[in-house]
């Protein structure tokens, strides 16, 4: 059952990425050149919707949060710095 849920969620995830244009090289690179901010709009909209939904559901007592990604200030920052290089190169 969990596998079917994962598969369906994955399909919708991939579908939304494709429709937002995030599967294209120029969309990803242009956000770093400030000529097309679709990636930022997409990410931030998803964040806001999911944030408000999740905190509302937790407030109603319907869900519990899974393990929140751990904070290692140096690790997260350095990882992000290297990640950006790869992202601008490949357009992933």
């Amino acid at each position: 059952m969990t596998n079917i849920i994962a598969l369906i969620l994955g399909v919708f995830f991939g579908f939304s990425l494709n429709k937002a244009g995030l599967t294209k090289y120029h969309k990803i690179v242009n956000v770093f050149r400030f000529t097309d901010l679709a990636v930022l709009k997409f990410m931030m909209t998803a964040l806001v919707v999911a944030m408000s939904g999740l905190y509302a559901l937790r407030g109603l007592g319907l869900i519990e949060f899974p393990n929140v990604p751990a904070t290692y200030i140096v690790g997260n920052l350095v990882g992000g710095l290297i990640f950006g290089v790869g992202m601008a190169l490949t357009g992933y």
Partner: protein
Amino acid sequence: MKFILNYIHKEEWSPYVAGILLGIVGIVAVWLSDSLLGASGAFENIAGMIGKVIAPAAFDNMYFNFIMPPGITWGVILLIGIFFGGMIGAATSRTLMWGKKGSASSDEQWKRIFGSQTWKRWLIAFVGAIVLEYAAGIAGGCTSGLAISGGMLLAPAAFLFIMGMFASGILTALIIYRNRY
């Protein structure tokens, strides 16, 4: 109804609409299976599985035993779904390039900057992907697994990661594009 069908056939959605869809997917993932969306971890699970067979000694370490246990995890199934979801998205807008000529390197902007050779596109994609996966391993997630999924739980790690990602992304784009920036 007709409006919705027409919208599905559109090649490029408003990022806000697509973002709302992803947000809902993120909520459902936590609600129904108590998991976070993520793509990079799945590659490590698969790599761990292959590595345990080929070189068990090299893969017998903390990272592959406890942090990223090998196996067909929830994330691997999700990744398969992402692949097909992307294909369905392209098919509905009739831009699916599967097996067509020029499908291996089709981005116009890429060709303007790097030239039209296909091997170059594949080489840079391969090297860049190694950089990406390594960085995701250090940070504990990628754009979807850490920035979006962590961000929606208001994890500080996610925002540190986004800061780093944009700082170096902008710098790299500056170097690649130089005077065309």
